[in-house]
């Protein structure tokens, strides 16, 4: 069974490197500043002891006031996992650095999130719609999306 790492313990460890960017943490997650997401993700991937070599999934959630993205990282080496969260308050021009350079599994998932939520991933190699067709208007999983049947 994969062991979930304790968010607050990891947060205190990460604060040595990234003091300003840990916004909030709980027992099972760490909420980080979106501007430093790439740095923290790369650190978690490459640092001995963490070795998060696998990105399980990315989830986007629309909480009406802001978007939240949930990254589930897994280390196949140590068999432990960590949940990373990012909040985006500017919903109209929501954008985030792409993690597809670190984990290739991020590629399609970021495209899907772009497709359905309209969140842009900067420096993504191929950011275009993946499920819906080119020319579809709007991003249907947003809470404010309206569709006339």
């Amino acid at each position, binding site marked *: 069974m994969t062991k979930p790492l304790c968010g607050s313990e990891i947060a205190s460890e990460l604060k040595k490197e990234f003091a300003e960017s840990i916004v909030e943490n709980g027992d099972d997650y760490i909420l980080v500043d979106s501007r430093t997401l790439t740095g923290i993700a790369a650190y978690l991937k490459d640092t001995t002891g963490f070795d998060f070599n696998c990105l399980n999934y990315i989830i986007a959630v629309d909480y009406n006031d802001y978007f939240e993205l949930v990254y589930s990282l897994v280390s196949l080496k140590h068999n432990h996992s960590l949940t990373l969260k990012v909040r985006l308050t500017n919903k109209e021009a929501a954008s985030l650095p792409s993690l597809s350079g670190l984990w290739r599994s991020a590629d399609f998932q970021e495209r899907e999130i772009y497709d359905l939520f309209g969140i842009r991933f900067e420096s993504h190699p191929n950011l275009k719609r993946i*499920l*819906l*067709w080119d020319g*579809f208007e709007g991003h*249907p999983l947003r809470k404010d*999306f309206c*569709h006339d*049947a």
Partner: protein
Amino acid sequence: MEIDKKQPYSDKDLDKYEGVVIESLKAGSQFAIEDPDSWLTEELQRNVLTTTVDAVLNWSRRTSLWPVICFPACCAFEVISASSHRFDISRFGMEILRASPRQADLMITAGTLTWKMAPQVKRLYDQMAEPKWVIAMGACGISGGLFKGSYSVVPGYNHIVPVDVYIPGCPPRPETLLHGIEMLRKKISKRSISKE
């Protein structure tokens, strides 16, 4: 002797009447009735069949309906079940599911169709040779079903292709599918080449 049923009659009268009927039928049936084609030579009897063109065409069409493989979603499992040994659509001469639309004449629309998939289904239908038929299978095939009103789902195959038979259900059981196929066969047997 006739029995007048308006007048009172006894069981004995009834028995007598039965005896008279049997005797008269027996008297008139002493010789075998000749076969209608007995005036033909044996060679002709074996080789000539008279019928109508409609009957032959419709018979051949309805007894070899080959479905094209176009099963976009979960209703496909009912089609698979219908085509395997328990329900066995090979009884109707349609066990060959054609991977090429050029060899098929029936489209069973088993499953939800999204707008992204719709051009491919339309293309499959267009590539099928005439005459061709479409069975809209399941709630999604009929109207979009559960997903009617969704941003991505076609609200019924009849927006894309003309439908001959609608089979309700979510999903329809194989029996229902067989019933729908039976309906289609009846529909085909009423066709006439004079109207084509």
